[in-house]
Every structure is written in structure tokens, then in C-alpha cells.
């Protein structure tokens, strides 16, 4: 009876940790990890599961939803969330012992930063078009000048 009570108490004491390990602003995290660090902006959890199992977990979590994008970064997978949830991304990184999963909070800093970058990129695309047009304009101008000179000489 005592053992049962001790087990129940232990489970009760341990369950918040398990809940913390699985919840960061609603971001799905596999159970059974060890919290490495936690701040307001992100939480890092270490797991002994394989990288493939971690990817499979998230593919199952987000099955059928169009508001997520998986980006392969070689030794890591970056999952971005686009449906305006409190959390923005989950990064699965391979480690020696298993994987580390980092959930990050959504932030206007990221949104503003990525938009500023893309606004700047619009300029770059059009500058990339401007350069050949300018070269074409100079070349055609010279050709037309030569033709005009040849006509005048004739």
C-alpha cells in the first residue's frame, strides 16, 4: 500500500515536468524529453529518439494541414507554422545521443524582419532587370550612332 502511495505521489510530482516538456505555447513536442533550456522566446528539449522518428512524429502531427512547411537543412529540419499560433517554429537537430527539438515563439520581429528582407529583394530583382536593360540601351545606342554616322558619310 505504501509503495502504491509513493508511486502515485511520484507520478503526481513528475507529471508537471512531463507536461512542461510537452507544452510550449501549444507547440507539439514528443513526450519523454529532457528540458535543456527554457526562456520566454524558446524551449529546447533533448530526446533519445532517432531523427527519423522525430520527423515522423511531426509529419503525423501536421498531417492534412497546409499551414506548415518542412525545410530540410541537412542535419536539421526546420518546421514553420503559418496559421498565426503563439509558436512560430520547431527545429529538429541531430545530436550524438538523439535529437534536440527547439520550439520558438511567434514574434513580430521575425515577421517584420522577413518582410523587410523581401521588400529589399523586390528591389534586387528589379535592379537585376535594370542592369541588362541599361547595357542593352548603351549597346543599341552605339549601334544606332554607328549606322547614323555611316549614313551621313555615305
Amino acid at each position, binding site marked *: 500500500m505504501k509503495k502504491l502511495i509513493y508511486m502515485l505521489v511520484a507520478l503526481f510530482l513528475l507529471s508537471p515536468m512531463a507536461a512542461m516538456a510537452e507544452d510550449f505555447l501549444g507547440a507539439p513536442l514528443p513526450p519523454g524529453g529532457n528540458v535543456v533550456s527554457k526562456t520566454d522566446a524558446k524551449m529546447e528539449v533533448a530526446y533519445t529518439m532517432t531523427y527519423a522518428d522525430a520527423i515522423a512524429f511531426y509529419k503525423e502531427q501536421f498531417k492534412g494541414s497546409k499551414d506548415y512547411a518542412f525545410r530540410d537543412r541537412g542535419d536539421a529540419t526546420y518546421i514553420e507554422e503559418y496559421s498565426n499560433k503563439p509558436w512560430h517554429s520547431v527545429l529538429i537537430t541531430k545530436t550524438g545521443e538523439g535529437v534536440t527539438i527547439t520550439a520558438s515563439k511567434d514574434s*513580430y520581429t521575425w*515577421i517584420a524582419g522577413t*518582410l523587410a528582407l523581401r*521588400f529589399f529583394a523586390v*528591389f534586387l530583382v528589379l535592379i537585376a*532587370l535594370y542592369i541588362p*536593360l541599361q547595357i*542593352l540601351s548603351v549597346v543599341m*545606342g552605339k549601334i544606332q550612332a554607328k549606322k547614323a554616322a555611316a549614313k551621313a558619310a555615305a
Partner: protein
Amino acid sequence: MSAYDVYEMFKGTIDTMGILSISWQMLLMWAIAGFFMYLAIVKNFEPLLLLPIGFGIFIVNFPMVPLMGYTQAGHPELIRFFYHYGLEWEIIPCVIFLGLGALTDFGPLIANPKMLLVGAGAQLGVFVTFTGCVMAGFTLKEAASVGIIGGADGPTTIYLTQKLAPQLLGANALAAYSYMAMVPLIQPPIMRMMTSDAERLIKMRQMRAVSQTEKIFYPLVSSVVICLLVPAVAPLMGMFMLGNLFKESGVVSRLTETSGNALMNIVTIFLGVSVGCTMHSDVFLNPKPLFIFSLGLVDFAVCTMGGIATVKVMNLFLKDKINPLIGNAGVSAVPMSARVSHTIGQQYDKRNYLLMHAMGPNLAGVMGSAAAAGLFIAMFGG
């Protein structure tokens, strides 16, 4: 035959009629449809699109009409067929761009390619509106599709919205085409506010003549740049450049004529009706479309400011100043916003002819909004 059989017959007949299933929401949608048809017919606001869209809204908001569903055999009904193959497959926006390319003369842009920067600057509102939408609770994809309204480019708006947020297609298209038609109302106060008397009187040097060879090379050069840097919009811009090449080559007049007239008219009909028919009362009567309409106005205004501000920044570095009144033309409502530049310029100096100068940023705005759309598509891995 008993009285009960007769009653059942009548009841069965009446049950196939929609008259008993009309709701107040449908009546409200009829009023909204009527408003857009009024704008098209009486006010001549973008009638080529607002009329079929308005009628599409009207006809789909009747009970039991077999238009946007599927038959019992599983086949798409009439408008669902147009919508699926034209819009879901993104054929129609690309074919419209083929026609637009066949009607466009890029000479003013080729003659003064630095106007490309004005076209880029006029996309400011796209990104500002994106931020506003996110703060208002839209998803990121929805915010991108609403933001692109400010690019004032109907096919690009439809292309991006269908890719990222098809549930907003009707509202976005309606907002885009409505505000495009209202450019002569929206832009002039902003232009006057952002320019000084001296700036409005700037006379720009006459543009150089552009050879036919340059006009033939332009679509090829543009295609290379767009396909390499923003491949996501290659279908859209590729068709645009194909149409332009038809026109400028001068050797396929039949294809040019068909692209710019018959083909474009056909797909415009299908586009307008399909878009209108997405706006059933169940979908349209919620706060989001109304919010999109108000954001669309802000979007256009900020894009106008972005274009004018870009010209003012460029003038800090240029010896031959650009009249900032043509900055508004970076909002690519072709050729309406260029005409607005000319009209406002004429109010201050009757001898200042800004129309052809304004066509440069007007055309650059088309490239700019396509680039912005492509970057949004790339952002979401689409």
C-alpha cells in the same frame, strides 16, 4: 388519385423550387452584387471584370442552384468546372497575362529603365498591409494574399490568392478590381500631400526612341531574370513575356490579335463569373471580407506613398530630376494611374506632359508586384 397524392405531388414540386429557402443573407448578397454591377454599368468602374463578378455573386446566391457543386454522378457543375480548371489549376490568370503582354508596349520602361526602382518602391504597401493583417489575426498566407492587392494587378492577386488562401479569392479579387477602378479618387490627395509646388513643376527630358530590336529583346531578358530569381511566378510572367514577344516580333499578328482580344475576352468572362460565384453568402458574410476591403484601401494608399517616396529618394542622387507625380504610377493599374499622374501634372502646368514618363513606372509596377508575389510564394515553400 387521392387528395393526399395530389398534395404530395404539389409538395414535391414546391420542394424543388428555391423560393421557400431564400434567406436574408442571400438578399443582402443580391444588394452587394447590384452595387458592383451599378459601379460597372453606371460608373464604368472596371466593367470588364466587375460586371461578370457582380453577376456571379448574384446568380450563386439563390437556393438550390446547381452552379458551384457537383452532380450526383460526381461531375463538377457549370461554374465549378470553370473554377476548377481555370482558377484552381491557375490557367486563367496566366492566359490573361498572355493577352496583357500582347497589348503592352514596354517602350517607356526600356527608354528609362531606372523607373524599375519606382515600381519596386510602390510595393511598400504590400508588405505594410501584410503586417497589419497578421496583427489583425489573419494567417500568414492570408496576410500575403491580402497584401498583394496593393500591387494593383488582378491576375497576380488571383494567382497568389489561389495558391496561398483560396478561401479569400472572391474578397481579394473584388477588392483589387474595385480599388483599381478608384485609383483616380484614391491617389490625387496623396500625390498633392507628398509633393511640393516646385516638385510638381519638374519637366522631364523627352525619352529617347526605343528600337524594335530592344523591344524584342526585352521579353527575353525579363524572362531570364524572373525565371532565375523568382521562378515561382514563371508561369505568370512567362506568359506575359510570350504575349509581348508576339506583339513586338511583328510576325505573328494573328496570334497577337487572338491573345489580346478573343482569348483574353473569353477567359475574362470565365474569370469574372467564377470569382463572383465563389462569393456565396456563407463564405462572404463574415468580418474578414469587410476587413479586406478596408485594408485594400490602406494598401493602395501606402503603395502610392511608396512610389512617390522612391522618386524623391532617387532625386537626391540624380542630375536629371524625376517629377515625383509619376511615383504614383508604380501602382500598376495600367494605364489608369499613369493617366492620373498626367492629369495632376497638367493641373499645375499645362505644358507638362507626364503620361509617357508615367508609363515607365506603371509597367515597372507589374514586374514589381509579380516579384513580390513570387517572393511570397517562395516564403511559404509553395
